[in-house]
């Protein structure tokens, strides 16, 4: 026993060092799994308040740019509105039907999306998994696993929520992939390579499919994102000679460097769908 105590006293620093490092690794291991993003995050109150104070200052310098992007979005929405107004779905008579390209009364829309605007109060593009902090939290109806989009394209997924703040795993991460499609419906998945905040990577598109520069890539119905939101445009192609798989580099539609306003999208049917899918999987 005495020897044991002597041993501990002699190597106390080393033992303490190893213990602390083990704590660090446990923290990392818990966080790096897909489920456990919740341990330490900038959605907590202290760091949330600090980031909010900073954002209040930085906010004024970006007002002009913000105005421009809001004008653009307004324009786009107005265009959409005129298109929708042109098709009168309620009084769908035989005469009017001839004007329509799609018979929209027969399409039942199950997915109902609720958009909530939020301001970005912290953002990074340099890490391997980048997180964004928003100034909305559980009190504003934000829940985990909601999709986040900007006025120009996809942003990420809500991974952690506190009372007034929420953490978003941005599309610039190396642990999750996004389901994506080309204009003709060809499916693939979009990932990211660390260190290049403007470039996303589209994979799983066979070589036989012809793609061209500046083709758009959209989100699909399969993910938690609402469909047909722009992910990016094709910038460069690379074909792997060995297995004939082509990697497509996309220019991301969202500029992650100066993100200021985003929309958190809630899919009200998602819970039911997830439940059904999970129960199907467990029955197998």
């Amino acid at each position, binding site marked *: 026993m005495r020897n044991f105590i002597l041993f501990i006293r002699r190597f106390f620093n080393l033992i303490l060092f190893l213990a*602390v490092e083990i704590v660090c690794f446990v923290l990392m291991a818990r966080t790096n799994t897909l489920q456990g993003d919740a341990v330490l995050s900038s959605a907590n109150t202290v760091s949330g308040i600090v980031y909010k104070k900073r954002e209040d200052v930085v906010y004024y310098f970006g007002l002009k740019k913000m105005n421009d992007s809001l004008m653009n979005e307004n324009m786009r929405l107005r265009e959409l509105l005129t298109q929708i107004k042109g098709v009168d779905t309620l009084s769908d008579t035989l005469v009017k039907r001839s004007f329509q390209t799609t018979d929209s009364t027969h399409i039942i829309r199950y997915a109902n999306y609720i958009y909530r605007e939020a301001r970005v109060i912290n953002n990074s593009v340099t890490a391997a998994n980048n997180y964004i902090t928003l100034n909305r939290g559980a009190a504003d109806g934000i829940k985990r696993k909601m999709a986040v989009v900007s006025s120009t394209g996809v942003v990420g997924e809500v991974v952690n929520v506190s009372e007034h703040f929420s953490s978003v795993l941005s599309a610039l991460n190396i642990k999750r992939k996004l389901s994506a499609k080309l204009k003709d419906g060809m499916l693939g998945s979009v990932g990211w390579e*660390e*260190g*290049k905040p*403007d470039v996303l990577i589209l994979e799983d598109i066979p070589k036989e499919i012809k793609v061209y520069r500046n083709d758009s890539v959209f989100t699909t119905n399969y993910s938690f994102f609402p469909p047909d939101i722009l992910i990016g445009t094709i910038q460069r192609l690379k074909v792997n000679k060995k297995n004939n798989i082509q990697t497509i580099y996309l220019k991301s539609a969202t500029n992650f460097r100066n993100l200021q306003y985003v929309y958190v999208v809630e899919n009200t049917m998602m819970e039911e769908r997830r439940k059904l899918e999970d129960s199907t999987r467990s029955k197998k």
Partner: protein
Amino acid sequence: MSIYLKNFFRFCLIVLIQVLVLNKITLRWWSQPTGFPVFIPYIYPLFILLLPFETPVWLLLVLGFTLGLTMDTFMNTAGMHACATVLIAYLRTNVLNALLPKNLVEYPNQSPGVKNMGWIPFIVYGGFLILIHHAVFFTVELWNFSNISYLLIKILASSVTSLLFIITYLLLFTKQTSLRS
């Protein structure tokens, strides 16, 4: 000012500089859109570097862990910064012993600095620990070795940049009068 109070204020100051200013500076050494990694300079290990000479190792470890966890909370990287910072806190005493002519106990109430170490030894001391910190941090963050040249470039480039920022900090916050004498 008491040495505890001084170090407490330095902790707050360095954390705030890191979080509010440096985390917003995304650096890239060549400006082509793809190819070279982006990074941000880290100066927060400077707090560990500037603690007084006679700080016991266990206290260094505890402070390193606290500092690392604070950075982790701000940057959403649970444990990664803490891991790297604790390692340099542990190595600090050995590096100082190797670099200084006298024993560490013979510097009562002093902190490592440009004044009592001179520029070259301090830069060697700081540079070595920063390099280790960045190497551990980026390795842990990336967690694969498939692209080792990318990792090495990132470690080297950001260590050099961080060191430049640390030197700037020292030039700004060292008392000029005592430096001249």
